[in-house]
């Protein structure tokens, strides 16, 4: 529609699908829900054109399950939803974690709890992304602030999922999901696409959960490739079969957690702005980070030394860097569209290094730059 074919004016939700397809998504299974529905709709439209498949399942539980099944059969798979559906998917997200099935789950956050405010923006599922399913499990969750970044981070979600054999969550919010913005779609050649490691063809000793010396992620065969392996959500040994051995349990669980913990440098991403001389740092993410940026600019115009920190990976949280920054500032302001979620994590990692303030909102409105600015003035 634009002159140059790779310049588009797109919704965040559309960019998510474009990114997914660029990353190699070949299967989408889901159930519609505002404000994520466009992701399903655009996937239904575009997937057949790239030889991929779309299915609308009977509910979100089934959408998650089918996405996992598709991934096990070799296709890069995605599902998208919003709060109520995200809650329903939790059991099977845990399954994907323990069975180490790469897949991408998009949550376009809306006002909760329950049906709440279905069309209003929110960032109220940030903690749920980490703790929503039962039991301990590794978590990777990313949050984009723009349409272009939605594209990029969707690609990255697939890459991380494939690289670490784990479900990865894209925590969109209604602001970014529904906003339309200019996006320059990168050339395929510019996009790094990572695929899961496959076993050697014909490897007769293939064990789906056995890692090579010095590695932490096992190779993953697809059903039908001739390996005939077993997959279960029970604690299992390297061969994939259930085990009640405490050693096996410990080994599996520890490896699962370490997949993320030992690779923080590879996984963690954040954006910093004017941190060097900042007396106050605004920490914000997703759609709200745009308000934070605007507030920072206004503050700077007024001569206030304000910086901004934007976690791009919400989980793992850029804990070390935030702790470091905290040492040099007078205050940290956490701005997020909820009652106080990521701020708790900030408090945990900052400890006494700097006072922490929260700008939250739970009324269905976005946080404005002026609200953040007011807090900046208050604390400076």
């Amino acid at each position, binding site marked *: 529609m634009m002159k140059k074919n790779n310049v588009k004016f797109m919704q965040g939700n559309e960019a998510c699908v474009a990114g997914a397809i660029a990353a190699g998504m*070949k*299967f989408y*299974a889901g159930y519609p829900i505002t404000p994520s529905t466009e992701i399903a709709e655009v996937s239904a439209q575009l997937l*057949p*054109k790239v*030889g991929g*498949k779309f*299915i609308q*399942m*009977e*509910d979100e*539980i*089934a*959408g998650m*399950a*089918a*996405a*996992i*099944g*598709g*991934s*096990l*059969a*070799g*296709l890069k*798979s995605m599902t998208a939803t919003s709060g109520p559906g995200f809650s329903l998917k939790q*059991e*099977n997200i845990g*399954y994907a974690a323990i069975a180490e099935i790469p897949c991408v789950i998009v949550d376009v956050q809306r006002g909760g709890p329950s049906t709440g405010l279905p069309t209003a923006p929110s960032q109220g599922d940030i903690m749920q992304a980490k703790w929503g399913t039962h039991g301990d499990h590794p978590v990777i969750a990313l949050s984009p602030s723009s349409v272009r970044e939605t594209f990029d981070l969707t690609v990255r979600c697939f890459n991380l999922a494939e690289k670490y054999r784990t479900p990865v969550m894209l925590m969109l919010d209604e602001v970014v999901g529904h906003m339309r913005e200019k996006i320059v779609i990168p050339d395929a050649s510019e996009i790094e696409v990572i695929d899961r490691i496959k076993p050697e063809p014909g490897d007769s000793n293939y064990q789906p959960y056995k890692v090579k010396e010095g590695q932490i992620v096992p190779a993953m065969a*697809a*059903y*039908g*490739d*001739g*390996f*005939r*392996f*077993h*997959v*279960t*959500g*029970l604690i299992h040994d390297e061969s994939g*079969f*259930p085990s009640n051995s405490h050693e096996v349990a410990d080994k599996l669980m520890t490896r699962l957690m370490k997949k993320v913990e030992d690779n923080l440098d590879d996984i963690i991403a954040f954006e910093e702005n004017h941190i060097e001389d900042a007396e106050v740092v605004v920490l914000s993410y997703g759609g709200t980070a745009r308000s934070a940026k605007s507030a920072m600019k206004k503050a700077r115009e007024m001569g206030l030394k304000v910086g901004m920190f934007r976690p791009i990976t919400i989980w793992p949280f850029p804990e070390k860097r935030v702790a470091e920054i905290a040492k040099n500032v007078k205050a940290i302001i956490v701005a997020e569209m909820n009652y106080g979620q990521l701020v708790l994590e900030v408090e945990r990692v900052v400890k006494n290094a700097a006072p922490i303030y929260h700008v939250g909102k739970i009324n269905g409105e976005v946080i404005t730059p002026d609200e953040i600015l007011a807090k900046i003035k208050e604390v400076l």
Partner: protein
Amino acid sequence: MSSQLINQYYRAEKLPHIWCPGCGHGIITRAVSQAIHNMGLDKDKVCIVSGIGCSSRAPGYMDFNTLHTTHGRALAFATGVKMARPELEVIVISGDGDAAAIGGNHLIHAARRNINITTIVFNNNIYGMTGGQYSPTTPTGDLATTAPFGNIDKSFDIANLAAAAGATYAARATAYHVPQLTKYIENGIKNKGFSLVEAISVCPTYYGRKNKKGTVVDQMNWLKDAAVDVKAAQKLTPEQMEGKFLIGEFKNVTEPEYTQEYQKILDRFKKER
């Protein structure tokens, strides 16, 4: 050594299995592999998916592509597998609880779509794995740990329900009627669409014991006596059918299959490209 069938289709190192003495699930599991054997399917191209339950442990013993999922969700996972690789023969093994209680919705929707998956429900009229709670197929009046005063629930006819929901093949046999069962499983797999074979199993440990059904042999004998072939039943009066149940093939029709229909959409774009 064990029998050739077992050697060929089982992960013999995982045997003996965890099922109780006399559990009908072993008989039905064997029938599944027998059917696969009779059809000469390529082991690498068969994917067996289950949920959670005693019955759902079957795939762990079977030497195919196997997937043990979450309780009730086998068909939803299987749908993903089948969509992704339609060339795989996807078979779902499930229990009465797994398929018809928590998994009931996925069952009727897979049936509705007529996706080419064959589901075998190991129906022992009880939740075996969790120790004997009533299931949607526990007969009214029977006892279960959660029905200490007699079950007041009416029970599902799973084969019939699947047929009403859209399955193009629906049949029922029992752990006693193994030759029929094997045949129906074969026919189910042959059907290019959603097939459901209900296999009446026995759970001597919980259902049998709670309901004073005697030994497992008594229960097998009951299956033998109470089952009436659907064709034979046509000649029986309602009185004669009292206390009996039907086995046989209830539905076998041809309708468009889901993944094939999707393929047509893909083909349309392939031509355009």
